[in-house]
């Protein structure tokens, strides 16, 4: 059973291999994602994060979930030497971490319901669990130069995959940083056991430019595939094990 919707301004897909999959369980997950977006959205005026940024929510009133995400952000900032930072231009922006957290939570909730074979995807970040019809899940990495092209295929069970990047459109290059070294990297794909970790590290390592792949090589539990402007790819020593 495969169902799709839009949440957080992005396409969401839940694909269940388990034959006993129930539509109402997927509906419940979609509802959870809507609720989560209402808390963490930086676009919705009434979200808790927007209220915080407008000064209406005081520290002593932060609910437990908000404190948890803040603590995750602090932890990630320390692990990445400041390259991951949820405070940007004086505003609190948890979006570099919330997507991975959301997918991870949905996967955990589905497992608690007894599901063992499914995938949860939000706009190119995914957590795969168990099998897809008696084989592993096939996750393709999209080419940053041609959105219709796949340049790598991973075979995974029980892993999270996240890709951070900028865009290349015809002759127009979107350069988020402007510095000569970090605009070398156009795409960074990270594989970890948990999509929450893959997502936050993809966000952080992409900000490091070409140093990002070295950072991930040295880190336990992460494999990565980094694509540069000149259409070359650099990958960590354990990455190829995930490919066919």
């Amino acid at each position, binding site marked *: 059973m495969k169902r799709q919707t839009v949440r957080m*301004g*992005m396409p969401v*897909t839940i*694909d269940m291999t388990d034959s006993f999959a129930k539509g109402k369980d997927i509906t419940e997950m979609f509802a959870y994602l809507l609720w989560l977006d209402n808390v963490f959205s930086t*676009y919705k005026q009434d979200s808790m994060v927007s209220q915080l940024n407008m000064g209406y929510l005081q520290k002593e009133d932060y609910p437990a979930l908000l404190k948890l995400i803040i603590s995750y952000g602090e932890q990630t900032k320390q692990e990445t*030497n*400041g390259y991951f930072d949820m405070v*940007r*231009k004086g505003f609190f*922006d948890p*979006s*570099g971490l919330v997507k991975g957290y959301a997918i991870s939570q949905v996967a955990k909730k589905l497992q608690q319901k007894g599901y063992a074979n499914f*995938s949860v995807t939000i*706009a*190119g*970040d*995914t957590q*795969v669990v168990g099998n897809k019809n008696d084989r592993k*899940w*096939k*996750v*393709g*990495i*999209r080419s*940053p130069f041609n*959105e219709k*092209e*796949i*340049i790598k*295929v991973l075979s995974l069970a029980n892993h999270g*995959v996240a*890709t*951070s990047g900028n*865009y290349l*459109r015809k002759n*127009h*290059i*979107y*350069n*988020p*940083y*402007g*510095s000569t070294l970090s605009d070398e990297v156009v*795409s960074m*794909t990270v594989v970890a056991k948990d999509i929450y970790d893959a997502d936050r590290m993809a*966000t952080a390592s992409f*900000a490091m430019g*070409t*140093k990002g*792949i070295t950072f991930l*090589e040295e880190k336990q539990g992460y494999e990565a595939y980094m*694509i540069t402007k000149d*259409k*070359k*790819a*650099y*990958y*960590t020593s354990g*990455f*190829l094990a995930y490919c066919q």
Partner: protein
Amino acid sequence: MLQKYRQITIVTLLFGLMVWYRHLPQKEMGEQRISPPASPTPPTTPASVDFQALQVVYTDGTYIGDIIDAFYGDIQVQVTIAEGKLTDVSFLAHPNDNSTSQSINEQAMPLLRSEALASQSEHVDIVSGASESSKAFQKSLASALKKAKG
């Protein structure tokens, strides 16, 4: 005795008159009766929508959208309209003005495994790709198209 009966009769008659008076339809008394609105009957044929009127007309030219804050920096979209239609959407480069970003030392490319990109033709279940901060993109695009509407 007769006088008493007359009084009673007059009172009864007056009372009856009062009751009759109150039960008169208000309208006849000069007051407006508020009648509940008639329940609308569903249209038997759907109203015709003027799609032509809904068509957006863009004026030819190049238009730049607002700068919208996306996670990695700013997004600004530029659109090109030709013959009234959207023919190109591109992103304008924006320097990251995040003052906390650390300076990056020039260094040689890491001596890791590398390869050239190769197109894969096999079927995949899921595609992982760089997804732009879609809301920021949509906002900037919408603002550019708004200018194109003129």
